[in-house]
């Protein structure tokens, strides 16, 4: 790990001023950043530790029935907040499907959005990577592509965003609250992460010095609570990144779908909202045939980035299965193996 200038501001304004310097990076839970620094893959000149700024670690109910999640709320605290889990069960399920207990106790909501890809070539300093060194090339292209993107990728980068948390968040129209040198602003999560294009090193909408202060969910998100699931397919049923995941949610009037929400994870450089699939389900009957049509629509533009065409068919099946589970109803308790298709028993929410 490189030596760095360490700063621990007490206010957002101080933090933004400290982070505006070139080479500065915000530090929160550190579960991803410190790991990257240990591998010498990133070498920030300054760490601006935001964990001592008061007021960023609250889970606040909003008047419209939504919630504001402070950027510093730890993943475990959010997932185990009984009121949050009751109103946004698919998000709690996604959180508990991610990482391990130890990491969820450290990782923050804001940091989750800003975690880097798990592309093996990004993590291997000896490989060419346009994210690490713009213009260096991409050794993932033509390399081991099993886990890589099938949507929105470019010739310059085929990496995926690995977050579980972001997948239901984007399905439920989450808003990212941001503060920076030019003041306060908001960005819909759907537009927060960028597709690689020819600048894969630019991963988010954040300008230099800007920090996430909160993630907000609108009240409408809670209306799906009875039929909202997160399904995650991975190499093993715990503590692994997704190969493909999906957040699926329904608002039903009898067996008629009033409104559907769908987002996919680990298929692109961003959590992938599937509007076309949602539109197709609105007003339709909740049945397998329609879920199958929605899955086709969600993956209509998918193309393999190498030998990963299997992910396209897998993603269709994950979408269909996620809607079947959502239609069956959100379980009273989150499953023992959260978001696993093999889940049995219940994990007590304490």
């Amino acid at each position: 790990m490189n030596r760095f200038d360490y700063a621990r501001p007490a206010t957002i304004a101080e933090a933004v001023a400290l982070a505006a310097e070139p080479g500065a990076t915000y530090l929160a839970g550190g579960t991803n950043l410190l790991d990257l620094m240990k591998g010498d893959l990133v070498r920030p000149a300054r760490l601006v530790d935001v964990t001592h700024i008061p007021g960023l670690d609250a889970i606040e109910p909003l008047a419209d029935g939504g919630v504001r999640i402070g950027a510093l709320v730890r993943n475990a605290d959010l997932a185990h907040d009984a009121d949050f889990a009751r109103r946004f069960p698919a998000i709690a399920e996604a959180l508990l499907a991610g990482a391990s207990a130890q990491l969820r106790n450290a990782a923050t909501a804001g940091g989750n959005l800003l975690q880097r890809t798990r592309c093996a070539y990004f993590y291997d300093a000896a490989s060419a990577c346009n994210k690490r060194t713009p213009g260096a090339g991409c050794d993932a292209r033509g390399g081991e592509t099993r886990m890589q993107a099938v949507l929105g990728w470019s010739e310059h980068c085929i990496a995926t965003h690995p977050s579980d948390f972001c997948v239901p968040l984007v399905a439920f129209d989450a808003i990212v609250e941001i503060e920076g040198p030019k003041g306060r602003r908001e960005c819909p999560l759907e537009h927060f992460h960028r597709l690689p294009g020819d600048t894969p090193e630019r991963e988010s909408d954040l300008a230099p010095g800007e920090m996430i202060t909160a993630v907000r969910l609108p009240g409408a998100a809670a209306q799906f609570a009875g039929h909202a699931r997160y399904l995650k397919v991975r190499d093993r049923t715990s503590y692994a990144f997704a190969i493909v995941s999906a957040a699926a949610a329904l608002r039903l009037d009898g067996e008629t779908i009033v409104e559907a929400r769908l987002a996919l994870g680990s298929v692109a450089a961003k959590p992938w909202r599937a509007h076309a699939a949602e539109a197709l389900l609105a007003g339709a009957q909740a049945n397998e045939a329609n879920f199958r049509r929605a899955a086709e629509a969600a993956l209509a533009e998918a193309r393999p980035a190498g030998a990963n065409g299997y992910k396209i068919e897998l993603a269709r099946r994950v979408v269909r299965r996620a809607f079947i589970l959502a239609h069956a109803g959100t379980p009273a308790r989150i499953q023992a193996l959260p978001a696993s298709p093999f889940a049995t028993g219940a994990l007590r929410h304490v």
Partner: protein
Amino acid sequence: MQPDRHAPPSSLSRARTRAFRLNGRAHAALVADHVLLLDYLREGLGLTGTKRGCDGGECGACTVLIDGRPRLACLTRAGECAGHQVETIEGLADGGRMSPLQRAFHERLGTQCGYCTPGMIMAAEGLLRRNPDPDEAAIRAALAGNICRCTGYVKIIEAVQSAAGSAR
């Protein structure tokens, strides 16, 4: 945490005095900003019970408790512990007597080569403090981040169940 009142707002990997509680005792140390808790415990203090496994957040061998919650010492700056309670495997025994969980691992043969054991026990300890009566699924979920290459986990799960049962 006590702020460094006389410190400039930032400085390059400066060594700072950090006060925290370690295994129940007040502890103060001069720690540089970049030093990780795992290195500080093992090399700074000689507390080698906390193991270095993958050193990258994937194996759980370095699990300690911070404010009673399992955390990875390999991905935690030592300085972050200032003002908090840190517990390592060395702190569990009481005057040479094994803790109930340690005894259960011993009696139920939850240990083979032993390398993952301190991390397993600390992760399980964190679970039992939060949920004193976990079912098997909850134990498996709590230990999902701890890798063991010897046991196949069955005896480890039994040990945690036994410790929880004997506390009932």
